[in-house]
């Protein structure tokens, strides 16, 4: 009996001599346990065992922290700070992702089968990639164009606020954010009235007799602005503009204006100073902004639904339809997963291309 206790103490001591290993081990253990429980890898009694093991890990961790003294607690601290975020990610990102992948490889026995069986059914991916290819291509091109438009509109705006805003800076920034006080849906629906066939914009264009210009640019189709690709892209640009302006503003605002003076002293023209000093220093903001705009825009379905026509549907609309109306969970999961993969690849290429690591 005594030997068991002393062995336990010895083990405890050896653990407390390497507290960082305990911290890492418990963090990983809790993460795996959380995914196992949430994704239902284990059920019933074995789920209880996993839960008890997780609890034991926490108890062990607390013991290590108390037994090891100040030093041990210091080396445990980083893992302690990581744990809430990690467990959150495991529960609400990894576990659902796992469930989605499993669903995307399942097949339904009948139309109203709510529990599709896992069958390595890659057919779902074939459908996602062939039948919905136009929607994928459309989503990425709309999101790409909208991202570029937000840069074209947002960069000068952020530049103006950062360097010429003066004491009105905060008010101007507030004006950029104010539309967000209204619901996303309401803001999108409002464009319905503005762009309507008998609405103010179209009437003005017709009065000025410039509808031909818009038609030739393909912004207007058949005399209408609403329910065109231009309306959908415009809606995306409008809705995501602040996500571009704010990060660019933050990186511009940090720039020491004396750097521009220094460039001028070294005989660079204003445009050279911008190209060689200001623009490179603002790239992190531009980079963050484009990701913040492109990723949600690619998956958006609200703009296409309310401002588009049957030929402008984006992949988000198709996923929603497959999930909620066709009840085709396997294909919808495959589509969601393909969307995630493509976005990840695009972001990786973009990161490589922009190479902002040394700038951030």
């Amino acid at each position, binding site marked *: 009996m005594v030997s068991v206790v002393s062995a336990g103490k010895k083990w405890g001591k050896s653990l407390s001599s390497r507290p960082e290993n305990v911290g890492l081990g418990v963090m990983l253990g809790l993460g795996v346990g959380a995914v196992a429980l949430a994704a239902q890898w284990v059920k019933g009694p074995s789920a209880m065992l996993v839960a008890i093991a997780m609890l034991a890990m926490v108890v062990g961790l607390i013991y290590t922290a108390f037994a090891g003294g100040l030093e041990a607690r210091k080396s445990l601290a980083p893992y302690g700070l990581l744990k809430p975020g990690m467990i959150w990610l495991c529960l609400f990102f990894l576990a659902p992702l796992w469930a989605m992948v499993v669903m995307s490889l399942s097949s339904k026995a009948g139309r109203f089968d709510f529990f599709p069986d896992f069958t390595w059914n890659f057919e779902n991916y074939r459908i996602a990639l062939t039948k919905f290819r136009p929607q994928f291509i459309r989503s990425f091109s709309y999101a790409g164009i909208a991202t570029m438009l937000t840069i074209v509109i947002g960069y000068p705006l952020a530049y103006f606020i950062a360097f010429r805003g003066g004491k009105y800076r905060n008010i101007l920034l507030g004006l950029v954010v104010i539309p967000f006080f209204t619901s996303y849906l309401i803001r999108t629906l409002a464009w319905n009235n503005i762009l*309507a066939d008998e609405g103010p914009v179209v009437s003005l264009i017709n009065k000025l007799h410039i509808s031909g210009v818009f038609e030739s640019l393909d912004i207007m189709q058949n005399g*209408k602005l609403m329910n065109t690709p231009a309306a959908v892209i415009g809606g995306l640009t409008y809705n995501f503009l602040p996500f571009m302006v704010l990060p660019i503003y933050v990186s511009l605002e940090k720039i020491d204006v004396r750097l521009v003076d220094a460039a001028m002293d070294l005989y660079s023209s204003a445009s050279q100073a911008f190209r060689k000093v200001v623009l490179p220093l603002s790239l992190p903001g531009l980079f963050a902004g484009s990701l913040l705009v492109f990723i949600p825009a690619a998956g958006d379905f609200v703009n296409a639904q309310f401002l588009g026509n049957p030929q402008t549907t984006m992949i988000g609309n198709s996923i929603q339809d497959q*999930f909620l109306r066709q009840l085709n969970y396997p294909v919808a999961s495959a589509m969601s997963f393909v969307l995630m993969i493509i976005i990840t690849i695009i972001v990786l290429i973009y990161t490589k291309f922009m190479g902002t690591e040394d700038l951030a």
Partner: protein
Amino acid sequence: MNTRRTTTPQSVKASRLNRRDFLIRGGLMGAGALSLPALLAACGGGSSSSVDTAGGGGSSLFFENWPGYMDEKTVGLFQAASGVSMKYTEAFNDNNEYFAKIQPELSKGKKIAPDILAPTFWMAARLIQLGWVQKLPKADIPNFVNLRDDLRGPSWDSGDEYNLPYQTGIAGIAYNSKITGRELKSVADLFDPAFKGKIGMLTEMRDTIGLILMGEGKKIADVKTFDQASVAFDKLTKAKNDGQIRSFTGNDYVDDLSAGNFAACVAWSGDVLQLTKDNPDVKFIVPEEGGTSWYDTMVWVKGSENSDSVAKWMNFLYDPVNAARLTAFVQYISPVKGVQDELAKMGGDNAKLAEDPLLFPDAATFALLQSWGALAEEEEAKFDEAFASITGA
């Protein structure tokens, strides 16, 4: 049908919130509360606003209905008359989406919170086929005799054992004569190249496809397979590719029609009734080739044990006096016999409603109406899939 937005005559507005105000306010609040995750959440509890949950022991009842589909007095009057404590919510927004919401419980044989639902007839047929609803306590519903004869014995419930219609309506064509510049009368007008990019269609497959099929001279009750209907799908696909169709909508066609974005669209009778009064350019017709008739029908969900309250409620609604009050508010065609006389007795604007040909269609209009039979599971899947690929979703 999607959120049906119907409207009431302005004169009825005087004393209370009417259905249109109610829906606009409700819609704004709903939209405000709406977030993307909420839209995407396939299942989970109903986020419903409880209208009335008056306490008290004894029997209870929970009716989940379409938005804006009930006047303000009826639930209270029923509770006072029957002693049943009734919960009434309006979270039933879309047949398919509601089905997705209740599927997890009902497919496992668990019960869901509501006792009564009012899905559209084809969804009721599906629920019956899946065994998710139970036989109505008809012996305790003496007012069942007031059910309109033409609604009795549908092919999917030949003994009227499982369903009792709530409201009925017509899908036809609505148009804005200021934009069209002429009167319309036929389904073919929807495909007139002069209206390119100005035509709306409903996302409700049976109404849109049904109307096109009738335009092609088919009897929709006889359509049992996808092949028989493929001509309508081809025609719709071509119209979409030509840019003829501006959008597929739920009830929101009302705004597009009134704003002049739509020259014409497939529409529901009740919606257009009020619009016509606000905007005389907007007109509703049952095309000469025919219109579809649809109805939403009450079913009793399996697992619910409140047989007594269910019977009392249905009996209450099928009393012509109560049915007339409901009709004056929702302005759809009542399934209850005797409503026309009751409305006439109410006098004033309600008496005018009794004369309205869209609320009480004459024999000639009735003769033009057709309704869908039940489609087999695999055939319905083909219809839905083909329709979804046209609507672009």
